[in-house]
């Protein structure tokens, strides 16, 4: 059987809000390591990987590896019924086709339980190697969200370029162009307000802003976001989840128009 107890239940609520816009249905995989999810959006352009390590739960019992298929919108509806300070327990019996969410108020004077039907979801699991990135940018997550939102009002795609000068976000559209440059700044009072850039090699990649904005739904999870880039590889936009895990979004780069002529799709 499976029984997971999370004191900071709001984390799970935020996780669902951050993921459900991208993915409709997904398998949650539970093992001794933790509670994880990997799913692609319908066009297979973006991938989300979630990990909540078992140590981060107050109580974590998982007798055998289990995979639970859930509709994320329905799950989000269930979790909306939990208060922001509630303790959330997730329970499932072996071989069961339902999962139970239990919400306890901090003073334990109110206990609710919700049962949700599981789905049979056939999905492919992708092996994501640990990669060396040409550039890694760590910055305030609210700043990144603001940049994506602002650029969306000008164009559909964003070019992210990292040089020794800093990281530049550029877009262009019918009404004009926009460029936002963030230089490295480590001399700030709070570490989460710093922008840190590690660059081994200059990088310039183009991404669909629609997806980037979806990723920034995870902003409430973490004060900082880490953006890892390598030429011709998917970008990784990572939000840490307290001390217990992460949600990572992978997005395939767009091929530029001129590139398309010389390098036809195989």
């Amino acid at each position: 059987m499976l029984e997971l107890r999370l004191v900071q239940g709001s984390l799970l609520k935020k996780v669902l809000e951050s993921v459900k816009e991208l993915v409709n249905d997904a398998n949650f995989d539970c093992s001794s390591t933790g509670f994880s999810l990997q799913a692609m959006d319908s066009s297979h352009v973006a991938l989300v990987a979630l990990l909540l390590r078992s140590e981060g739960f107050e109580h974590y019992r998982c007798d055998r590896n289990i995979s639970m298929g859930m509709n994320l919108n329905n799950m989000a509806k269930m979790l909306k019924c939990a208060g922001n300070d509630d303790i959330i327990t997730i329970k499932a019996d072996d071989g069961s086709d339902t999962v139970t969410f239990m919400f306890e108020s901090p003073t334990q004077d109110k206990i609710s339980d919700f049962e949700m039907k599981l789905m049979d979801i056939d999905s492919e699991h992708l092996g994501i190697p640990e990669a060396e990135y040409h550039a890694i940018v760590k910055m305030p997550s609210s700043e990144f969200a603001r940049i994506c939102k602002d650029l969306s009002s000008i164009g559909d795609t964003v070019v992210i370029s990292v040089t020794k000068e800093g990281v530049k976000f550029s877009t262009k559209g019918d009404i004009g162009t926009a460029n936002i440059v963030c230089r490295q700044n480590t001399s700030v009072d709070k570490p989460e307000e710093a922008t840190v850039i590690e660059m081994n090699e200059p990088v310039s990649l183009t991404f669909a802003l629609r997806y980037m904005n979806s990723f920034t739904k995870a902003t409430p999870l973490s004060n900082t976001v880490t953006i890892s880039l390598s030429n011709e590889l998917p970008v990784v936009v990572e939000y840490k989840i307290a001390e217990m895990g992460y949600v990572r979004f992978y997005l395939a780069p767009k091929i530029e128009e001129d590139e398309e002529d010389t390098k036809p799709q195989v």
Partner: protein
Amino acid sequence: MKRFFKVVEKDSDGSVKKPRENDSEAEESNEKKEPLKFMTWNANSFLLRVKNNWPDFTNLITTFDPDLIAIQEVRMPAAGAKGASKIQGEIKDDTSAAREEKKILTRALSAPPFGNYHVWWSLADSKYAGTALLVKKCFKPKSVVFNLDKLASKHEPDGRVILVEFETLRLLNTYVPNNGWKEEANSFQRRRKWDKRILEFVTQSSDKPLIWCGDLNVSHEEIDVSHPDFFSVAKLNGYIPPNKEDCGQPGFTLSERKRFGTILREGKLVDAYRFLHEDKDMERGFSWSGNPVGRYRGKRMRIDYFLVSEKLKERIAACEMRGHGIELEGFYGSDHCPVTLELSPSSNSQNEDPI
């Protein structure tokens, strides 16, 4: 995303949601079985069949209870934004209209008896061609590929191929390109190229017998059409092909019929229906029927087949056209009727006999 990361096996320890206790018994016994009952159908737009003919088709599936259903002319566009590269194994859902249609289809395929099947798609960029394969979930394929070259993740243009491999046999579902009426790239030449590739495919050595089914868009012999004289001289706008053997109805030209005969002979394939039904059957011997209104009324062809390796010949128990008559009864709204094949179980004890 699969371009960047490889698909890996999940941890096999209970990584799939366990079925209920009652189901597990059935599943255990079924795991050693192989599919024996097959159906192929050119639906002439699967979505329209779901919308207009679904209760009757559902009844056929419930009654016949096939282990595997091969569909041609799904006519749903592949996923992927306009102008972007397509994901041919998924249905388009990036517009509200596309989402609506996908929902109609996925709901129909979630309800019994279709909820018992796993579905694979190979789709075209637009509402054209496309194939689907439904396999009962208790039969677990060893592999599914979507091209004749057996390359993982590649699809044929227009989604014309799904090849599934089981423990002891392979099944190939194809929607063969129509010959068309003219000597040009998208007509005679396209079909010649296809026939050449399929001949290469069926002559490759393999340890597992093949079942090849689908809309093969050819009527092999005169017995396979209702009116050979009519079809032999059919023309489009008076066009006369340069090569005499390309004259006539697409699917009934001498060129196509000869190439098909070569494929059967060199591929050591048996036409299951003709193996069991030697005589012409004007009522239920055809899988395609012309529009009841107009000059093609009552003009019929057998172009949907089950071809099986000679090794399977003795196991052909039944092969039937599920529709009949010039009013297209049992066609469920398509211009093709379903065709079914039943194999008798393989005699494993005979194989294990120590002598």
